[in-house]
């Protein structure tokens, strides 16, 4: 990591939605932003003009996830009505019919090569190809699926629910299961493919080594852990619980017995946590209205940039090139934060 230098953050307001922004994403070329709110609206904004270019079909009771395909221009939108729709993000036309499930959409995750998207709908996970065709459906989970992620090579899909992690390849049945008594709220496979970590309802973080399933647990967080993030080198795992931010170091013998770096954190609960694509910095957004950018250092000043947006925040995403962030707000605002 290079020496700490201050970053300059500038704020640009994008067109607002009508209600609490539950999800936001930026397209792979950095040209479009998609966002959804809890009133059920989803919109696509062109960052060149700063205008809304499409209002998508409403999802009653709220939109829960939007996600652009890693390459190409397919946008997936899921809602609390249990529906997932794929859209041609440039032509703003739906691709095929929506998939309808029982329960709500708990998460969307594109396979790294873009050949499929996994959608958690209620207790099931449905996998769709970019043309809208269903490839496989996993229905083994006893409770609503809250989180899912792919291994970096795209070979396996991790599905987190109450009771642990279910691992899938291309068949409907799981190939492996990491059992754990508790509810997983967030799940992240390390980019190295060596670890999987979960943030949990019981205020802990659990890590398993792939594929020995040797595990370790970090406890003592002030509340449930809803956001965790690996840096691209898989050396650091950032964890948010309420306003606290900690970073664990997995180098050498790993974090067992060590203490994490504690960042100054936020005055209210963190709503978004993500490393920049090159792994240089960590960004957080919180209900205190701040977007903060950190370079975690033990004992030193870690905060590089800090911006008060003027609204309680609700979600955060990096642009794929790492030049800007977009934060969603609890009152519908969409805030672009450019960094240099």
């Amino acid at each position, binding site marked *: 990591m290079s020496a700490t230098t201050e970053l300059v953050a500038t704020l640009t307001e994008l067109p607002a939605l*009508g*209600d*609490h922004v*539950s999800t936001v994403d930026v397209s792979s070329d950095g040209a479009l932003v998609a966002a959804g709110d*809890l*009133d059920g609206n989803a919109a696509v904004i062109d960052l060149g003009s700063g205008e809304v270019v499409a209002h998508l079909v409403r999802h*009653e*009771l*709220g939109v829960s996830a939007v996600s652009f395909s890693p390459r190409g221009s397919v946008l997936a939108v899921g809602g*609390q*009505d249990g529906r997932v729709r794929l859209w041609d993000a440039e032509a703003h036309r739906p691709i095929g019919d929506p998939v309808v499930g029982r*329960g709500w959409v708990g998460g969307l995750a594109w396979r790294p090569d873009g050949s499929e998207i996994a959608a958690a709908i*209620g*207790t099931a996970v449905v996998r769709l190809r970019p043309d809208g065709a269903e490839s496989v459906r996993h229905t083994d989970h*006893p*409770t*609503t699926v*809250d989180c899912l992620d792919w291994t970096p090579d795209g070979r396996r899909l991790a599905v987190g629910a*109450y009771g642990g992690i279910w691992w899938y390849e291309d068949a409907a049945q799981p190939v492996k299961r990491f059992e*754990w*008594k*508790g*509810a997983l709220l967030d799940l992240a496979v390390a980019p190295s493919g060596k670890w999987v970590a979960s943030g*949990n*309802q*019981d205020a*802990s973080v659990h890590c398993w080594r792939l594929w020995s399933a040797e595990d370790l647990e970090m406890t003592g967080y002030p*509340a*449930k852990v809803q956001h965790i993030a690996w840096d691209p080198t898989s050396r650091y795992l950032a964890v948010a619980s*309420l306003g606290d931010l900690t970073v664990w170091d997995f180098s050498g013998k790993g974090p067992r017995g060590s203490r994490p770096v504690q960042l100054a954190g936020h005055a209210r*609960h963190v709503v978004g946590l993500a490393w920049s694509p090159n792994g240089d910095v960590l960004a957080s957004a919180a209900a205190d209205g701040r977007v903060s950018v950190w370079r975690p250092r033990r004992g030193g000043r870690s905060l590089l940039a800090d911006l008060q947006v003027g609204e309680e925040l*609700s979600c955060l995403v990096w642009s794929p090139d790492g030049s800007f962030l977009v934060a969603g707000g*609890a*009152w*519908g605002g969409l805030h672009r934060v450019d960094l240099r």
Partner: protein
Amino acid sequence: VAGMSATTRVPVTVITGFLGSGKTTLLNHVLTAQHGKRIAVIENEFGEIGIDDALVIDAQEEIFEMNNGCICCTVRGDLIRILGNLMKRRDRFDHILIETTGLADPAPVAQTFFVDDEVRSQLSLDAIVTVVDAKHLIAHLDDDKPEGVENEAVEQLAFADRVLINKVDLVDAAELAEVERRVRSINATAELIHSERSRVDLDRILGVGAFDLSRVLETDPTFLDETEHQHDQSVTSVGIEMDGAVDVAKVNDWLGWLLGTKGTDIFRMKGVLNVQGDTRRFVFQGVHMLFDGEPDRAWEEGEARTNRLVFIGRDLDRQELTDRFAACVVR
């Protein structure tokens, strides 16, 4: 205005009761009554529908037990998810109703309001209302369960703050008196309300603040009159009323020990204490091992500073509870 703040929590009423007791009729009554409140209903059997000023959300009753195996950490995962989202919407509700399935144990629902900080910061558990069918309650209470299996009808009564004795038109006075006696023998502090076709004055079940610490034991529980021993049942209420100031450290030790060893068996617990050296009442209440307590208003001039505690639970030893509490009183 004093007392108003951005952190005002939205009250939540939990409605339990067996299938056929009249829960759904009660819900419909609440939804169609002219109360001017915007209500959200979370229930298990319906689809998602909007009824004028209400929103009805289907829930899946997902019980989460945490890794440490502690019963008090058993919560309703689906409620955490649904309530969390409901409270984020700009469209706010004045009141939330949660209907449980007929055979549900009310504990995980109640515990959700103690354990999850997101839920706790925005919502307050107002009351647990148990609806019973006057004609069939006794049969349900006497239903023999295999060893180790809880009688859900008993459990639902034990947790209740309000018991709606419904369908009173289907029983005669003697039968009704027996139903009341049986309810009282399990839960001595709940308020009993009679109804036909679940028609009830909504002020008696909504916004009653039964979990509000300052209202703990506001009404005189009738448990002190209860001298009759109930050898035939394991779930009972034990009330303790005792004068004298208590040593707060001793009470803490005792309650800590009690909940640690018998927390699984203690469904509800409430109390008002006269703490030595404090001019204020200390009020507390708990569900299983979860416990909430704080100093409340000052004792008034001339008010008897009497300690009053109520335990509702399984296999409670009245003598032992009374003796242990007496040991905390500073003579």
